């Protein structure tokens, strides 16, 4: 059931308004905080108000403009998009609180820029989640690129500028690929709108507007272009170079890159490509996802191996992201209902766990200036709250039951076995082991090595979000079957996607 | 006769044009160019275009040349 409803636009508008207000009046600390927090909470409210209806099978639509006929900006809330929006707007709240504490020492001008662009980034993320068509998605995808750039170069040091340039070259290149894919899809299908179980499926059967039926080659080109285009942001292995470099940015920005928005946007884009542009049926015939799966495997293993080699905590976290996000791609490319659930679910699982770890890394750096792993000896006893949270997240990544990460691994394995692709199941196990190999030593050091120097847990502005996010990791892992909680949303989303196929 | 006049005139024009291009001294070139205008004037008359001939005499041979001379007066007459 499709309902015209302005709430998707409202959600976007709140973030945009927040950005404008921050830019206009944000020199004043109180206002800056007020706008950011108010907008974060308000937006979360708006997004969550969409949830009950969406779970009941409603789809909210809002078309804004159509500039060339048939091509326009529109919003459409389906469960998958809503899930992503929920994750990002929940994380926005925590990140805002954390950032208020973290950035307190910075100059006003820098803070205004930070909070303003941060709000813009979140607006772009909502736009991506609620995009009604590929063009809208692309617009917000690029907006995200552009608005992240000032955050990446926040410190304006030569290293930051260099990282910023690298980030832009990668992501703009990816954007170019997506644009090309956009043109190709429009040409092949005559439309860009999602929500019809495979835009291209119709074209493949009936022939596109302009010519004969689409050949496998054309479809392959479209798939490759789009997946690689989105893959840049998702930091798929050969295209991941920007992510570790971008670690020069302040911690809340890393959180944004790794958990709230950027990397997720890429992964989400690939989900859209698979479920909405190609559609499950068409892809099942075409076998392209096999290639994607192997790409994901390379990233999962390669990312882990590279993370292992890092001695800098944040860099290790960065490479770990490369590995973790590819879970989503691997799951999505398995093309079965169980795996679909986890492809969506992992957007949240990875997000909450990774943001916890970043918050902790940031708190450590803020409190003691320590950035290298070998400087963390005994820190667990000095910062009990933070390191407990860190440990929870690490265990989640390793795949310890009752934590979010376990669900991911378990379901991917189930999905892989369902599709009789046992080697992918093996990959999940190996990845879990690798996670253990590079996270457990950190935990060990923190708790069992002698203390050096003086550090303490950060203030509550930082500690609160850390604990809350860690709590979420536990929550995600234990409350899988409560209605309206993330897991049920994800499984409902997957059910809807597969129900359309069944019809 | 007319044919011959035509041919001679054309040959003359080409020769003058070459002279204009070859002349090292800009002043000389400009003055030869005024001769070129007069030759054209004759050509137009011969082609049955007295109106054009009149304009060419005034403009091509007269005004344009004077303007060139003025410019050469500022810039110097020697081409390097």
């Amino acid at each position: 059931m499709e309902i015209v409803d302005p709430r998707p636009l409202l959600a976007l508008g709140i973030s945009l308004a927040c950005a404008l207000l921050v830019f206009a009046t944000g020199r004043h600390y109180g206002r800056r905080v007020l706008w950011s927090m108010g907008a974060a909470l308000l937006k979360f409210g708006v997004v969550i108000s969409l949830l009950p209806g969406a779970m009941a099978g409603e789809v909210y639509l809002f078309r804004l403009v159509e500039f060339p006929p048939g091509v326009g900006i529109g919003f459409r809330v389906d469960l998958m998009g809503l899930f992503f929006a929920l994750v990002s707007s929940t994380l926005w709240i925590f990140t805002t609180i954390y950032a208020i504490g973290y950035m307190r020492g910075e100059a006003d001008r820098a803070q205004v820029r930070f909070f303003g662009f941060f709000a813009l980034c979140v607006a772009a993320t909502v736009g991506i989640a609620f995009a009604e068509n590929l063009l809208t998605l692309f617009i917000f995808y690029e907006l995200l690129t552009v608005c992240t750039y000032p955050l990446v170069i926040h410190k304006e040091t030569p290293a930051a500028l260099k990282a910023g340039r690298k980030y832009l070259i990668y992501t703009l290149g990816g954007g170019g690929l997506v644009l090309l894919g956009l043109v190709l899809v429009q040409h092949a299908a005559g439309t860009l709108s999602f929500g019809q179980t495979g835009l291209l499926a119709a074209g493949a059967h009936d022939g596109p507007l302009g010519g004969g039926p689409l050949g496998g080659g054309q479809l392959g080109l479209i798939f490759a272009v789009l997946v690689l285009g989105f893959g840049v942001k998702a930091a798929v292995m050969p295209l991941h170079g920007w992510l570790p470099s971008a670690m020069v940015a302040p911690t809340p920005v890393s959180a944004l890159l790794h958990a709230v928005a950027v990397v997720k946007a890429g992964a989400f884009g690939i989900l859209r490509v698979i479920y909405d542009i190609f559609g499950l049926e068409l892809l099942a015939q075409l076998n392209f996802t096999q290639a994607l799966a192997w790409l994901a495997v390379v990233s999962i293993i390669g990312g882990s191996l590279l993370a292992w080699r890092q001695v800098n905590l944040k860099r290790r976290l960065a490479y770990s992201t490369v590995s973790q996000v590819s879970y989503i791609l691997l799951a999505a490319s398995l093309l079965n209902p169980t795996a679909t659930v986890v492809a969506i679910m992992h957007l949240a699982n990875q997000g909450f766990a990774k943001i916890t770890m970043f918050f902790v890394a940031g708190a450590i750096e803020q409190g003691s200036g320590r950035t290298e792993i070998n400087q963390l000896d005994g820190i667990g006893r000095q910062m009990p709250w933070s390191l407990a949270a860190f440990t929870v997240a690490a265990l989640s990544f390793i795949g310890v039951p009752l934590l979010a990460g376990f669900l991911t691994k378990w379901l991917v394995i189930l999905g892989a076995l369902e599709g009789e692709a046992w080697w992918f199941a093996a990959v999940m196990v190996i990845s879990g082991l690798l996670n253990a190999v590079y996270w457990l030593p950190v935990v060990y050091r923190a708790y069992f090595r002698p203390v050096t120097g003086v550090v303490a847990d950060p203030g509550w502005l930082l500690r609160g979000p850390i604990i809350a996010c860690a709590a979420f990791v536990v929550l995600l892992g234990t409350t899988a079957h409560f209605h309206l909680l993330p897991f049920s949303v994800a499984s409902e989303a997957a059910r809807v996607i597969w129900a359309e196929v069944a019809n | 006769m007319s044919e011959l006049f035509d041919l001679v005139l054309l040959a003359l024009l080409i020769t003058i044009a070459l002279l204009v291009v070859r002349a090292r001294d800009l002043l000389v070139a400009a003055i030869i160019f005024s001769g070129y205008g007069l030759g054209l004037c004759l050509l137009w008359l011969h082609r049955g275009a007295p109106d054009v001939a009149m304009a060419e005499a005034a403009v091509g041979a007269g005004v344009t040349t004077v303007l060139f001379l003025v410019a050469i007066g500022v810039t110097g007459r020697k081409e390097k």
Partner: protein
Amino acid sequence: MAAALTVSWSALAAWPHWLIVLILLPLGGAVLTPALYALQRRLVPWWALLVAGLTALTVLPLLWRLAHEGPFSYLPGGWARPYGVELRFDEFAALLAAAVALLAPPVLLFSRRYAARAVPAGRLPFYYTLLLLNLGGLLGLAITADLFNLFVFLEVVSLSAYALVAVGGRPVAELAAFKYLLMGAISSLLILLAVGILFALTGSLNMADVAQRLPALATPAALTLAAAALLVGFMLKAALFPLHNWLPEAHASAPGAVSAVLSGLVVKAGIIGLVRTYQLFAGVELLDTANLGAILVWLGAASVVMGSFFAVFQHDLKLMLAYSTITNIGYIVMGWALASPQAMLGASLHLFNHALIKTTLFLAAGALIYRTGLRTLEELRGIGRTMPLNCAALALGALAIVGVPPTAGFVGKWFIALGALQAGRPFFALVVVFGALLAAVYYVRIINAFYFREPEQKAVVTAREVPWSMLAPVLLLALLCLGIGLLARLPVEFLEPAVARLLDGRS
């Protein structure tokens, strides 16, 4: 009420003389400007603005009539075609006319304060005269349906353009103007030569009449020469690669408002010329128009790539913009030559949109130079802090030139890329995307310098926003860059029949 309004509109549009008024207004206004200056020199900028405004209003009934009746003609002197000079208002003329109408008033308003500083005082009246002549000439060139008349108006446009480049008195500009003049004069001669050949072949100068008579001819070499001379001539005027050399310096060294007109409108004269050439030769079977098209497609693509490539490495803001003009001319020509409905549609749209965007950019850049006297990105670092509104306009314009949806720059490129696929030539869709990427690179360079660097120059630190009469046009145009992108539906629906007609005429 609505009905009454409609009736009065159509009554207004039915007055037959709007088309001649359209060119008489700016040209007549220009002619009286020096005299007015002698009477009351303060009035001259306002006078020019008034004339431009009235001209802009004149376009409205014309567009209305075109939308309701299709193309229509006006016959000065009342001589039937082909005996007199015919003026014809078709969709392509309308595009350029609409661009002129939209951009002339802001440019002139901007000029009032800008030119007072950028142009030596004694030259001011002639600055306005030349601007009006240039705009009037452009309108005449757009609406004329006569080959020789086209040449005459082209000369009005060109001569005024050469002088406008040099009007600021910068030594670089004078050299650039001379180079421009030499190239322009050669291209004019080629065009005149082609007109002569076509006249010798058909005995007529009216474009429609010539186009009707050409297919019956059996003179391939002469036809080829005429077509080639027209093409090369107009390509020179449009600065298509590899005949683009004169453009960057001329457009970069001219005063800002002039650069806006030159880059936004004057190069479009060349494009209109190419369109007319196409219309002339569309029915000629002796010439393989497909071959001709193939050459143009590649030249257009080369323009896109080379222009962007050079633009990326420029330090001077205006030079960067000038090279970007070459790129965008490339898009337009490429779209045209691809000759699929969507590509032609896109090219036509881009003709208008690029005029708007580039005018915005050059005016904004002019305003920066007005305040700081600085031109390179290095020197201008941090200017976004002291001139935030002006820089925001520039940033918006730059976003549009990159082609980010939903700005005006997107629609044209979108259709050109789709049209490339429609024509079965995906490579050129790739060129469009690649060009957009390169454009994004220089966009980032501008934004980076303006917003994310500490100011170093004293002029930057002490800069203020320009006066409202300069800022308002810039902001208005920048908003239009966005607004027209959002409203792209209208022109698309307006142009589709014209493109279809043109393509029908060919087959």
